[in-house]
């Protein structure tokens, strides 16, 4: 197609497909030259991560792939997974999702990085150690050199994982959802970190559902939906003037573009939950102290703060699941035990994966003597189809499952709902749908909501009031 040019193509993917186990990715073709960046953007379940796994040659069993890959002038068929193993670390590096899970929890940061220098890049022990030290210091981790992964913050662990993955001088870096579960400032750090590779003449392939990350990284963007390429082009052009209907919908679902909320009008009513002088320490660290909170019926209160500042712990205390170290929580008169409910960050984690949704719903109806008829209107409002009920939690999308979680919770007519980052693992379109439904229904039922999020724009658009935890 293209004639010989002076630039070197580091990674070229020809008609790559993935099939099997209910997923299929239409043939996708792209090429990355030295210094280029490519971002695959799409909602959860659009097959983004499978593309990364197909390039690395680490697809799970039961999936087949076809197509041709050229990785740094080494050409092979995508289905031939063993030949790529020799390239791991040296040419091709993968920054996995939630890298703190990819680090060895019993090994300190420095030896963890030195290991790659020594065994993959083949340096002597002292050389490897000093190279690892240089890498980590360059990434601003002087204090973290001798810490275990458990003692590092999410952002620091990410940098250690990045250093370990790229220590052997891989020129092609694939980052799979590098910002999943990180708060806004850390997210920007990660973007800067990732940009180092193309700046140094490498190639970067990022997979994300976060439009902001795609915008900051620049380069080329491919929007995927259900394994199909919807639209592709340079980041600035694509993200500012999307041509296709889906891309427009995806971009307008960014929290900063949402419409402002309707103002809250029940200021006068007495609070559902109020707490005064709350304080708690975890692992020898004071998370917060002298905290006063009050939430009124139907009010949406946003909770913001850096990772690990005790947002979830505050929720557990207000729900009555955990006891505060200091202070007290007072509930409105006549608050039933089941009047306090919670929505979880990772919808599949909040369900037993072994039962169909129908079974789970029947359990709930039997336990609380509800009529099935009472459920149907709410299900319809939440856009949950009857046929979804025959599936198990792992077999439907995260957004659908979170809406089912909302259904279960709202059936109990809660007075207070603690929503712990309920949409952070959902893509923007689903996030907007889910949150606006939640807010609408909470207002209707006069249920107080505490919404945790790491996205300040989202909190600003959705919540009546903010509670900032310092950390």
């Amino acid at each position, binding site marked *: 197609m293209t004639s010989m040019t002076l630039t070197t193509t580091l990674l070229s993917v020809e008609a790559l497909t993935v099939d099997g*186990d*209910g*997923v299929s990715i239409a043939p996708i073709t792209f090429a990355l030259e030295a210094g280029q960046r490519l971002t695959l953007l799409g909602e*959860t*379940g659009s097959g983004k*991560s*499978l593309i990364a796994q197909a390039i690395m040659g680490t697809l*799970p*069993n*039961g*999936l087949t792939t076809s197509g041709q890959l050229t990785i740094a002038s080494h050409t092979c068929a995508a289905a031939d997974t063993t030949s790529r193993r020799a390239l791991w670390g040296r040419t091709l590096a993968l920054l996995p999702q939630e890298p703190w899970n990819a680090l060895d929890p019993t090994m300190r940061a420095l030896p963890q990085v030195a290991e790659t220098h020594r065994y993959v890049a083949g340096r002597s022990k002292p050389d490897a150690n000093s190279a690892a030290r240089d890498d980590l210091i360059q990434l601003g981790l002087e204090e973290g050199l001798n810490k275990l992964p458990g003692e590092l913050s999410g952002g620091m662990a990410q940098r250690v994982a990045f250093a370990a993955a790229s220590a052997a001088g891989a020129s092609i870096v694939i980052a799979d959802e590098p910002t999943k579960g990180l708060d806004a400032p850390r997210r920007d750090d990660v973007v800067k970190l990732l940009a180092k590779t193309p700046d140094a003449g490498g190639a970067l392939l990022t997979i994300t559902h976060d439009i902001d990350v795609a915008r900051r990284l620049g380069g080329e963007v491919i929007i995927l939906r259900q394994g199909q390429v919807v639209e592709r082009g340079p980041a600035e052009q694509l993200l500012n003037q999307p041509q296709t209907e889906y891309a427009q919908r995806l971009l307008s679902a960014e929290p900063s573009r949402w419409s402002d909320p309707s103002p809250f009008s029940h200021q006068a009513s007495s609070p559902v939950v109020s707490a005064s002088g709350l304080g708690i320490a975890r692992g020898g660290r004071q998370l917060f102290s002298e905290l006063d909170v009050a939430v009124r019926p139907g009010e949406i209160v946003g909770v913001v703060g850096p990772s690990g500042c005790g947002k979830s712990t505050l929720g557990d205390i207000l*729900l009555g*699941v955990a006891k505060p170290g200091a202070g007290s929580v007072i509930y409105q008169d006549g608050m039933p*035990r*089941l009047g*306090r*409910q*919670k929505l*979880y960050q*990772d919808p*599949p*984690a*909040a*369900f*037993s*994966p*072994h*039962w169909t949704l129908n079974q*789970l719903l029947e*359990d*709930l109806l039997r*336990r*609380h003597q509800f009529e099935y008829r009472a459920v149907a209107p709410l299900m319809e409002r939440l856009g949950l189809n009857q046929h979804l009920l025959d599936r*198990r939690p*792992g*077999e439907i*999308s*995260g957004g659908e499952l979170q809406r089912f*979680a909302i259904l*279960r*919770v709202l059936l*109990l007519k809660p007075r207070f709902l603690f929503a712990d980052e309920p949409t952070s693992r959902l893509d923007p379109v689903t996030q907007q749908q889910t949150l606006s439904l939640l807010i609408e229904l909470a207002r209707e039922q006069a249920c107080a909501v505490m919404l945790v999020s790491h996205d300040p724009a989202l909190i600003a658009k959705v919540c009546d009031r903010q509670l900032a935890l310092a950390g």
Partner: protein
Amino acid sequence: MTAATTRLSSRFSLPQLSSRQQLGAFLLALLLAFAWLVPWLFDADPARQQLTRILQAPSLAEPFGTDHLGRSMLARLAAAIRLSLGMALLSVATAAIPGVLLGVVAGWRGGWSDRLLGSLADACLALPGLLLVLLLVAIAPGNFWALYVGISLVLWIEYFRVVRARTQALVTSPQIEASRLLGFGPTMLFRRHLWPELAPQVFTLAAFGAASAILAMAALGFVSVGLRPPTAELGLMMIELLPYYHEAPWAMAQPIIVLFVVVMSLNLLAGKDPR
């Protein structure tokens, strides 16, 4: 998302056995059929002696030959398999039920109940398994119940430990917290959340446990501290036929082969294909 689906499908392929497990199940079914069909189809008494027809080679009338007292090997083997498998089933059930229940209690409640039950398990572990069985057998020699209690006492600890560790991790998981907030009681939490996670491991342990119970019983029979003659028991048959291995190697080989096949079928059934 895809990882979750594959994990899920592998979890639910539990009833669909792998090829190794199918082989194990097939062998076990053959043994069961043999053990229960022989008394039906043949008029053979495992204890009937015919001293004129000792150590006969397999023939049409006696397909497996006879032993040193002229007893039908066919009938004795069938009786020995019934005894071994029945005993294995019984000791596995008596070990698994309290093991699982106490494991759930210890993992769930934590604190004192955990410490108390944990020390009880450690106390049982302090004696090597076979020694504990020998001790009980010494108290009541040749008794079936001593063997059975001894083997169960050794086996329940595995269930207890595995279930306790798994329960500890699950009890703090969001799925159980969510169900608890929705008002479900302990029975429902166990049925919906704990048991589906525990069941595959418990069944694997049960199959291995059955194999080791059978081996333990045969080993005790072989060193003549287990069941007493004239009971047809695999270990006992081996030691009884050992002096005649020169004249009748086929007779001596039979209990050994049967024991091997029983244990192998159970181990095949328990083992999963490495992924």
